[in-house]
C-alpha cells in the first residue's frame, strides 16, 4: 500500500516542468473539488472561489490510503485553507499539505494555474 504514496511528491512552482491541461473551470464546483487523472496519478483540484484561489493535492488520503480527498468539503482552519477527508474527517492544509487535526504524513500539493478558462496543474515530471 505504501508504494502508492510514493507516487505523490509535493511540487513547488519553480520545479514545474509540465503544465498539464486538466479541464475547464466550469468542470469544478464553486468552493468544492473534483479529481483529475494525470498519467497514473489521481490529483484532487479545488476551486476555492471564496478566496479566488485554486489548489491541487494528491487524491489519496494517507490515513487509510483511499482515493477520496477530491470528494471532501473545503473550508478554513483559523485562516488556513483546508480539505476534510470524507471518510474520517482528517483535515489537511491546501497550502502545504500538513495534517491539521492529527499526526498523519503531509499530503503532496501541486501548483495550479488558470488560463483562458482552462485549469492547468504543474508537475515536475
Amino acid at each position, binding site marked *: *500500500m505504501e508504494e*502508492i504514496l510514493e507516487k505523490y511528491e509535493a511540487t513547488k512552482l519553480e520545479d514545474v516542468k509540465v503544465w498539464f491541461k*486538466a*479541464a475547464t473551470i466550469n*468542470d*469544478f*464546483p*464553486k*468552493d*468544492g473539488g*473534483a*479529481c*483529475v*487523472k494525470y498519467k*497514473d496519478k*489521481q490529483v484532487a*483540484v479545488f476551486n*476555492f472561489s*471564496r*478566496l479566488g484561489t485554486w489548489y491541487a493535492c494528491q487524491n*489519496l488520503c494517507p490515513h*487509510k*490510503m*483511499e*482515493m*477520496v480527498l477530491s*470528494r*471532501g*468539503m*473545503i*473550508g*478554513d*482552519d*483559523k*485562516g488556513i*485553507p*483546508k480539505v*476534510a477527508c*470524507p*471518510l474520517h*474527517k482528517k*483535515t489537511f492544509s491546501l497550502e502545504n499539505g500538513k495534517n491539521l487535526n492529527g*499526526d498523519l504524513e503531509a499530503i503532496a500539493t501541486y501548483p495550479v494555474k488558470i488560463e483562458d478558462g482552462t485549469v492547468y496543474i504543474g508537475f515536475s515530471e
Partner: protein
Amino acid sequence: MKHIIVVGNGMVGYKFCEKLVAQEESKNFKITVFGEEPRPAYDRVHLSEFFENQDAKALEMAPSEWYAENNIDLITGERVSDINRTEKIITTARDREFSYDYLIMATGSVPFVPPIKGVEKEGVFVYRTIEDLEGMLAYAAKLKAEKPHARAAVLGGGLLGLEAGKAVMDMGLEPHIVEFAPKLMPRQLDSRSSQVLKLKLESIGLNIHLSKATNQILGDSAITGMEFGEDDMLDVDMLIISAGIRPRDELARSCGLDVGVRGGIIVDNTMKTSDDAIYAIGEIALYNQMIYGLVAPGYDMANIAVQQIIGNTEAVMPADIDMSTKLKLIGVDVASFGEPFMPASKGHSIIFENKTQYLYKRINVSHDGKKLLGGILVGDAADYSMLHQVYLNGMKIPEDPSQLILPASSGGAILGDVMDLPDEAQICSCESVTKGQICGVIESGEATDVAGVVSCTKAGTGCGGCKPMVADLTNATLKSLGIEVKDSVCEHFDLNRQDLYKIIQVKEYKTFNEVLDNHGNGGHGCELCKPLVASLMATIHADTANKEYAIQDSNDRFLANIQRNGTYSVVPRVPGGEITPDKLIALGQIAKKYDLYTKVTGGVRIDLFGATLNQLPLIWKELISHGFESGHAYGKSLRTVKTCVGSTWCRYGMDESVSFGIKLENRYRGIRAPHKIKGGVSGCIRECAEARGKDFGLIAVEGGWNLYVGGNGGANPRHAELFAEQIDNDTVIKYLDRYLMFYMRTAKPLQRTAAWQERLEGGLDYLKEVIIDDKLGIAEDLENEMQTLVNKFECEWTQAVNDPEMMKRFNHFVNSEEEDDNIVFVPMRDQKMPEPWV
C-alpha cells in the same frame, strides 16, 4: 552534561522521558532510550483496540519524531543485555556499549506462562505486545479459513484475560474463558459482583469456565483442546494465556541489584534501587513489597524518579497507593475503589444487586456511617468518579449512605456537585491533575474550553476515564466566571444551530455564502458548518441535497453512503418493509448486473454495496425505472419506519401496522433533521417491530395507538417514552408533525431525539405541554411547516438522473471516463468485500 539511559520503552519508560523533557533542568541531561520491541512505546492499556482497527500508529504514545524533537536518542529493536555497575556501562544485544550517569530500569513485565504440559504447542499465545496480537490475528485467519466455528480459550479470568476475551470475539472466534479461581477478576471483585459480571458476559456470548485447573494442553503439533481432569476437557483451536505478569528482572539479577523473593527490583520511596545511580519504575519496581500493575502508579513513579534526578529530593512516593480502577470490559462497566473487600470489623457494606439488569453496587462505609471506605460497581459505573472523589477526599456522605448507590428514581444518587470537591482532589490520576489545576487554567484564561483544559493540563489523556468530570468542571467553572458556555457550531460562527435556524428563516437566505458573509466571523466555512447550513436550508426551504451540493457532507453530495474503499452503497426506499416479488427480483437483477454485495439492513431494507461513483447514476436509473426512489440512507433524515405484519395477516394484530407504517414513511421521507430519524409501528404489544427502540414508535392497543418518542439503538440504547395513549391515526400524525418539527427547530447539530428530549428543560412533561396542549402557541406553525415539507417532497435521485449537468458529478475523474483504479475487492463467502485496511 550527564547521561541518562532508560532501559525499556513502554508506557512508563516513555512517561519518564515526557516528564523529564518538560523540566527546565532537562537541558543538563542527555537521554538515550532502549526498547526491545521494534516500535516506539504504545498504549498497552488500550491494546484490544488494535483488533478493531489494526492501526498500531493510533496506539503510539508519541511518534518517533517526538523523541528526535526532544533530543532523545531512541534505539528500538535493541535489547540491553548487560549492566556493569562499577564502570557504569551497559552492553546491548548487538554488543554495543554505552556509559551512563543514571540508569532507569523500566523493563516492565512479561506474561506469566504456567508450567502446563503442552504450552509450547502451535496456537498458544500470550497477550502483551502488538507482535503477539499480529500472531494471533494471522493464526485466527488461518483457523477460520479451515473451519467455520473455530473456538479460542483464554487462560485467566482476570482483567487482562477478559480483555483478551474481547479480542477473541473481535477475531470472530467462539470465546471461552478458563479461570482457576471460583470467580472472575478475583483481585478486584467480591463473589457476588463477580457472579453478576459472569451472567452479563455470558449473555453476550462468552463461555465461562470457573474453578478449572488445566492439567495439560492437548494436540499433536497444534493445540486441539485443554484437559482439566480425567473426563473434563474443552475442545479449543487456540489458547491465549493471560495468567498474570512477572517482572522482567533478569537483567537486574545478573548485575546484582537487590530483587524481591518473587521478583521485582526493590526500590525505596524515591524509586532508587540498591545502587544509587539506578532507579526502577513501573511494573518492574517492587515498592512496599508490591508490584503495581496499573498505569497510574507507574506514571507517578516516573515523575518521582524525574524529580529526584533533577534534585527535587523531597518528592517521594506516598506510602498508600490508590489502586482504584474503572474500566469497560467488553462493553461492561467494572470499577472498584478504596477497599473493595472490607472485613466486617472495619465497617458496614451496603449492597444493591439487580441480576435482571446485570447491576451490582457495593459501598463500604465506616461503622458510624460517616465515611466512604471503598466499593465495587458492575454494570453501571457512571457514579464512579464522584464516589472515588468522595472516598479520596474523605468528603461527607448522606445520612443514609444507601442513597449514594440507589437508582435516582427511588430518591437516591444524590452525589454532590463537582464544584464541592476540594481543590486538591485528584481528578485525573494518570496524569496527577487536581481540580485546582483544572479550574486554575480556566480562571487564568489559559483555557476557554474542554479541549484547552486537556492540552494545558494533560488531564484525560491517559485512560480517559475522567473526561466526563473534566468536562463538568470546565463548564461549571466557566459558568461561575459568568462566561456563557458557548455551543456555537464551529469557529466560523458565534451562533448555535437554533440561532442559525431563526436567522435563515427570517432573512430568507438561500445560499451558504449569504449566511456566512452576513453572520460569520470572516472565515470560509468548514466541514462542520457547511453540512449544518445545508440541513437547515432543507428543513426551512425544502431544498434537496442537489441544490448546493458542494456544501453537503460527502454522502449527501453523492446521494449514497461512502464505504471503506471509497465505493458507495445504494439503499432504495422500501416503505414499511413491504415489497412485491417483482420489485425484489428487480433489485436482485440489478445487484447481480453490477456485482454488488447484497445485505438486508437492520432497518428491513436491502443495501447494495460496492458501487463505484461512475456506476451510481446507472444503477439509480434502473432502480427508478422499476418504481424505486431514494431511501435517504445517506442523509440525516428519515430512514425507515419498521413494521410488523399487523392485523392484515397476524392472528394477534390489533391494527394495520404495515399500512400505517407506509403512510408515515411516505409522509416524512426526505425531510432533513439534526440527525437520522427512525420509526416503528407494531400491531400489538408483542412489539415485533421494536418500535420503542426508535425515535418514534407506535403500538396498537385497544382503542387506538400508543405513541412513544425519543428511543434509539446505537451506543446508548434507549427505550422511547410513552407520550400519548389510545389516539387515532390523525392524532398520531398531528402529534408527530409537531414533535419532529419542534425537534428539527431546536436540537443541537447531530443530536438524536433521545439526547434532545433528555436535555430539554422540563423534560417529557414540558414536551407534552408544547406538543399536546400547545403551551407556546406554535403548534399550528409546526404543522404548517411540516405540511410544506411533505408537499414539496421530490426524490433527489430522480432529479439527478434526469439532469445531464447533475450527472457529471458522478464521474470519478473530470478529464477521463475511467474509474478509480485503486479499488480492490476480495471474495467473501459468495460475494465480495473491500480489501481490508492494513
